């Protein structure tokens, strides 16, 4: 793994400040970050509001790192990125804290803007990480979305 890609699974809170410098590249005018954060409220399709108490994340760790690295390689090939950082937290991720942080750097901003959503979509489709919801009523549920494109 060369220094254009940094992939980490962590068990502690993700602080943007710790990772910020990893995107530095003197020929990149654009840096973009996305953080996915545990949200209190979820609106269901039938109009209910579910209240989350906390989330817990589990991974197949070696496979997840491999898939995230491949995702970063593919993003660098598809967009003009010079740096990609992906950090995913495992274990409990309380309300308001980040479960995932993705960053990228590119010479021009359009590449960063196009790459971030693409990388997040692919993470959510392919990377073997799962979340378990604990709702305010203490009920729990592993989240396994129906595949949109079953193969």
């Amino acid at each position: 793994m060369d220094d254009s890609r940094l992939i980490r699974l962590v068990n502690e809170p993700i602080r943007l400040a710790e990772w910020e410098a990893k995107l530095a590249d003197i020929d990149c005018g654009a840096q973009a970050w996305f953080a996915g954060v545990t949200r209190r409220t979820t609106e269901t399709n039938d109009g209910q509001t579910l209240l989350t108490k906390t989330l817990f994340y589990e991974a197949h760790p070696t496979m997840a790192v491999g898939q995230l690295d491949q995702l970063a390689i593919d993003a660098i090939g598809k967009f003009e990125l010079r740096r990609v950082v992906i950090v995913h937290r495992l274990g409990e991720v309380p309300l308001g804290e980040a479960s995932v942080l993705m960053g990228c750097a590119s010479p021009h901003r359009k590449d960063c803007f196009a790459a971030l959503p693409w990388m997040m979509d692919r993470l959510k489709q392919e990377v073997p990480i799962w979340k378990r919801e604990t709702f305010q009523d203490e009920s729990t549920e592993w989240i396994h979305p129906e595949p949109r494109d079953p193969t």
Partner: protein
Amino acid sequence: MKQRILLFAGVRSASGLDHIDIDVDDDATAQVVLDELERQLPDSGGLIRISRLAIDGRYVGNDEQVGHCSGEFALIPPVSGG
């Protein structure tokens, strides 16, 4: 051939197991492995039906012959990271 298959998330939770050993023919496809897992873990049948098999960290197609493979097998239910 005996294969050990790692289990995760909803399947691990429902079965109380983090792996399961099953007997499969050398020429068994991934689909055959998935069918056998579904038979042995009926509480997770619906979930296994929409899961994928991975060997050594790579997804394999359901029609690939994997029974003879010596790598690490994992049952990957639909993911929800991020």
